């Protein structure tokens, strides 16, 4: 059993019950999802017995550098409302700030338990795609090169982020490059030949995938900043484009903030339909502290300007921006209170959403190996309050990013809320 390092933590913040009662216009099952991401989750022996690696996607399959432990946990859960919840995320399993929720299997039902009480149920674990059972021509499992969520097929093109070339410049919440280094890996990119083999096999599965996602760490080199990163994505997108008869195919790229010339090249030379560049933190000063590499190489204002400029190229509804929500309250340089953070974050978020950009904001869990690893994330009340406000703004400015919604991702739960409008 995993036990919180502070035994009194429940007395210091509103409970799940309190928050559900306070925000009656927000779905209770969705609030639970938010809290699972915030606190983490663990598995009872009954729940472990239900994990079948022949059927389910378990962590050994995906080579995900956002989780350090290869411990066969399910990659994700399917919620009763048909949405997904990624479950392979790392949290401090030795001394977490809060007790994680426990997944159990009782009377034929998958349930979520907290303090011995059932607080919710869900459909089951994510199923693995057929291509996870196949190997590339070099004998490696195809899942080494391409990974899958229930309806999304994805590839991490650059496994190393060059903002870490200067050790103090990596984003403080991010475990990608520290995990890459710890894994002993040397190849930053996989051979496109094996990626192609994986995609060819994956696309044979009828009714499985609705979108292709590309992402990866930043590459700073090139004639202009990020030119080499751009080229590596174009190369992979062109290869994927060969599988489709039309020019465009449902796809998303999460990358560094490209300038207009780079964005036009990306749009014109590939079949990409959706572009995402992550603003990460909704405040210039906090961004400078938390994402020093991004701040030094480009700066908050230019990152944001490029994000907004990309709407002119990809169109309204086809641009999103991610954030690691909650880091704005990290110590010692974060906001002093959740109220102060809320005011600032919402105001800044509106200046982005009003351009037709939806926010794919993730919940910050102080992740092992990241610089922020021993910090404490904000309360559940804070997350629900902020997401509720984002949702109101997204409804006002009609951002609807169908290609980054509840059925493609499974991480940024805030965009689930757009399912009813």
């Amino acid at each position: 059993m995993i036990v919180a390092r502070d035994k009194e933590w429940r007395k210091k913040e509103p409970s799940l019950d309190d928050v559900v009662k306070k925000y009656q216009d927000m779905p209770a099952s969705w609030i639970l999802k938010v809290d699972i991401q915030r606190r983490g989750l663990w598995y009872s022996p009954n729940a472990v017995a239900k994990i079948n690696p022949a059927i389910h996607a378990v962590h050994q399959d995906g080579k995900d550098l956002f989780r350090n432990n290869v411990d066969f946990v399910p990659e994700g859960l399917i919620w009763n409302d048909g949405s997904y919840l990624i479950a392979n995320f790392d949290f401090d399993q030795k001394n977490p700030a809060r007790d994680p929720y426990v997944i159990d299997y009782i009377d034929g039902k998958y349930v979520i338990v907290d303090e011995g009480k059932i607080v919710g149920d869900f459909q089951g674990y994510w199923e693995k795609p057929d291509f996870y059972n196949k190997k590339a021509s070099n004998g490696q499992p195809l899942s080494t090169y391409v990974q899958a969520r229930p309806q999304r097929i994805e590839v991490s093109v650059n496994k190393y982020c060059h903002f870490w070339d200067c050790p103090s410049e990596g984003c403080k919440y991010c475990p990608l490059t520290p995990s890459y280094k710890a894994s002993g890996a040397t190849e930053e990119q996989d051979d496109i030949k094996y990626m192609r083999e994986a995609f060819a096999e994956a696309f044979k599965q009828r009714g499985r995938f609705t979108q292709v996602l590309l992402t990866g760490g930043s590459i700073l080199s090139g004639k202009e900043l990020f030119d080499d990163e751009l080229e590596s994505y174009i190369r992979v997108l062109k290869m994927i484009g060969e599988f489709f008869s039309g020019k465009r195919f449902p796809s998303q790229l999460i990358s560094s903030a490209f300038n207009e010339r780079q964005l036009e090249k990306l749009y014109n030379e590939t079949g990409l339909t959706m572009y995402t560049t992550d603003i990460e933190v909704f405040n210039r000063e906090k961004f400078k502290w938390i994402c020093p590499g991004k701040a030094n190489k480009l700066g908050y204002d230019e990152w944001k300007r490029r994000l907004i400029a990309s709407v002119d190229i990809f169109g309204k509804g086809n641009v999103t921006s991610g954030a690691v929500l909650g880091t704005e309250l990290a110590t010692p340089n974060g906001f002093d209170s959740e109220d102060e953070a809320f005011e600032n974050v919402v105001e800044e978020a509106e200046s982005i959403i009003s351009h037709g950009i939806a926010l794919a904001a993730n919940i910050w869990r102080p992740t092992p190996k990241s610089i922020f690893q021993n910090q404490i994330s904000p309360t559940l009340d804070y997350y629900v309050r902020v997401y509720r406000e984002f949702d109101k703004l997204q409804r006002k400015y009609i951002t609807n990013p169908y290609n980054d919604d509840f059925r493609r991702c499974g991480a940024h739960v805030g965009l689930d809320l757009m399912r009813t409008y």
Partner: protein
Amino acid sequence: MSIFNSELIKIIEDKDTLKSIATVSRDGIPHVVYKQSLHIEEDMVVFYDLIQSSQVNKNLVNSIWFNGKVAISILAKDKRNFLITGRPVKSVTAGKNFENIYSKLQDKKGKEVELSAIWYIEPITIREETYETRRKEEQEKYPYIRHLDLI
């Protein structure tokens, strides 16, 4: 014991039966659609939603989130009709079962057909709404709620 009797299951499975589902939007606006895929599986009403951006999908999500109800009207070819009220409890959007239904739908209706979700409705009440049945019921229960010239 099943909440659905075999007669009603037979009516629901008849291809000439009309099956509609009424839902309510987040803003309280009612919406009715016909769902010929509607059938019974293990005491649940099941149907396929083929369009992700459909209003019925949005309304069902709203219902599953806030414990809302839906109404299902069944009209048999002999004009007998039934009203089922229920609660959406599950929406399947991925997995082997989803993929099988997706393939079957395409094989039957053509390659253009998409599948967005398989919805499961847990029934709460079932009531026959056929005019003759309801008229007799009312006559027995309220014999004096009538026009005088019918007494």
